[in-house]
């Protein structure tokens, strides 16, 4: 009973997050300007991380959660580097 409730809701949530990922990717391709693409990239990596968390709940494995931590770390650093590049034209001065 509870297993089927959980697996169905996890499936629906994964589908919703997949839709969110697709929309963020659409905005990243569409643009129109560089800052729009960076905001879309920010949303994209957060959504990917949340999808990984859902896989973690589904399988009960801790490995996915460490993967999610790594994604959020790398995503943050790359967003900051991209925003800094837009502002100054170089990342490390």
């Amino acid at each position, binding site marked *: 009973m509870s297993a089927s409730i959980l697996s169905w809701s996890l499936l629906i949530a994964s589908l919703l997050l997949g839709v969110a990922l697709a929309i963020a990717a659409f905005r990243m391709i569409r643009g129109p300007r560089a800052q729009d693409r960076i905001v879309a990239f920010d949303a994209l990596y957060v959504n990917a991380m*949340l999808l990984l*968390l859902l896989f973690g709940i589904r399988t009960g494995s801790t490995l996915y959660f460490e993967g999610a931590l790594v994604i959020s770390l790398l995503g943050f650093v790359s967003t900051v580097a991209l925003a800094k590049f837009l502002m100054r034209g170089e990342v490390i001065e």
Partner: protein
Amino acid sequence: MMQADQLPVWAALLASALVLLGAGFTVIGAIGLARLQTFYERLHAPTLGTTWGAGGILLGSIVYFTVAQSRPVVHEVLIAAFLTVTTPVSLMLIARAALYRDRAERNPLVPPDDASQETDA
């Protein structure tokens, strides 16, 4: 799925509701990213996904793993703390970069920078 069948029904319902709530907010934020017209409006859309979108999914995961008693709740707390610190920083940096670019192009939609205009003239 592992020991999910020993899970009480209330816990399964609570975790499912939280996960669906989080995913719903995230997808609404993504819809906003596609629908809204200007860049500065779109800046508000991803915060839905990083506040209650992520919060709902993390809380659902905490409920599930605490009731199933398979492992201590560490990673969720770390991810939540990390997200609350990092998303404002990245959004602020993007907003400032966008403002800088728009001002350099003298875009009429953004307020001008008074200090730099005095030095320009």
